[in-house]
């Protein structure tokens, strides 16, 4: 659903590494409010408020409608690829919505969690 923002026309940089969206100024500018929201979840009270009413919480920040929608869909790939989300900040959004890093990663790879784990050497070390 973000196809229109895909590719160079979205103003985001391409460093030429496949499947990789370097967090440079193009993404930091676009994602500023998004990452700010995610950063706010380092406060336990904010986590509670977010869990209680995501919409009200999102309304406090100047997110675009597309960013809000990607949060609603837990679309971690879109958040980091199109919406300027930095993975370390977005990870806090994952935690607050019950998605661990490996779940987020599996989704970004287009795999199920189980499929992803099968690609690892010692999947107990997680």
């Amino acid at each position, binding site marked *: 659903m973000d196809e229109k923002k895909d590719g160079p026309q979205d103003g985001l940089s391409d460093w030429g*590494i496949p499947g990789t969206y370097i967090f440079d100024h193009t993404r930091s500018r676009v994602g500023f409010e998004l990452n700010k929201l995610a950063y706010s979840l380092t406060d336990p009270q904010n986590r509670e408020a977010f869990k209680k009413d995501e919409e009200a919480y999102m309304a406090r920040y100047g997110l675009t409608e597309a960013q809000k929608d990607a949060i609603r869909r837990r679309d971690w790939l879109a958040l980091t690829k199109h919406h300027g989300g930095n993975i370390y900040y977005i990870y*806090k959004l994952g*935690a607050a919505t019950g998605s661990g890093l490996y779940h987020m990663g599996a989704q970004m790879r287009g795999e199920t969690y189980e499929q992803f784990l099968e*690609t690892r050497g010692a999947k107990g070390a997680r």
Partner: protein
Amino acid sequence: MAKIVAGIGSSHVPSFGPAYDGRKFEDPDWKPLFDGYVPVREWLRDTVRPDVAIVVYNDHGSDFSLDRVPTFAIGVRDIYEQADEGFGTRPLPPVKGDADLSWHIAKAVIYDEFDLTVCQEMKVDHGMMAPLPLLFSHDPDWAVRVVPIVVNVIQHPLPTARRCFRLGQAIGRAVASYPEDLKVVVVGTGGMSHQLHGERFGHLSEAFDRRWLDLIARDPEELCRMTHEEIMAAAGAESVELIMWLVMRGALAGGAVERKHLNYYAPMTTGMGLISLAAA
């Protein structure tokens, strides 16, 4: 006079935390990691016996937000609480700082033309806390005082690999000019290969990591020539935090070094490397 006596390079993977706190030392999937730290911890405790650890790490959006991103920062506190990274904090005592030494380093290094951000308020995240208990005892209290050096490896533009090495050299000069008799170890944290976003999530490169572990001791100059792009293309976007190991290596660069320990294990999404270097 204070003296840098050793350098450590170590990954700082967040999952070290629950594995350590859950005492998974004998878990077959964790044992190769924890076993690697045992001789290093013993060597530090029994032979090196440092008073202070300068820990070079990056914040992961835990205590530093994107409103103001310092390229290099230094903590100048006597105590550092843990940052809450979204899950609460770990059952570890607060880190002991050394404000006098921190301010001395800040002054020397700023006058030496490194443009630090000086932090009187600062919390530390897994960038420091993942490896710290694997290297130093903390029961009932930490065996070392810590000087935190924070490097931006999150928002590009990042400092170059060479700049990191040079910061380490400046820190080495600063420590050498401190009048108190202190033994100092420098810990460079981060990496090794990993990528945590995009379709390339989970990318690893043991070949790159092994090469880094070799060159960091033997030929850091070759690492200083690497661009961020080269590192990220070879070893994953988030592996670029390895440049922080060069701050450690620069701090040791005044003399020869001897590699004492080496460990490598890559069970999940991050190459977990560990190296120790003794100053000659």
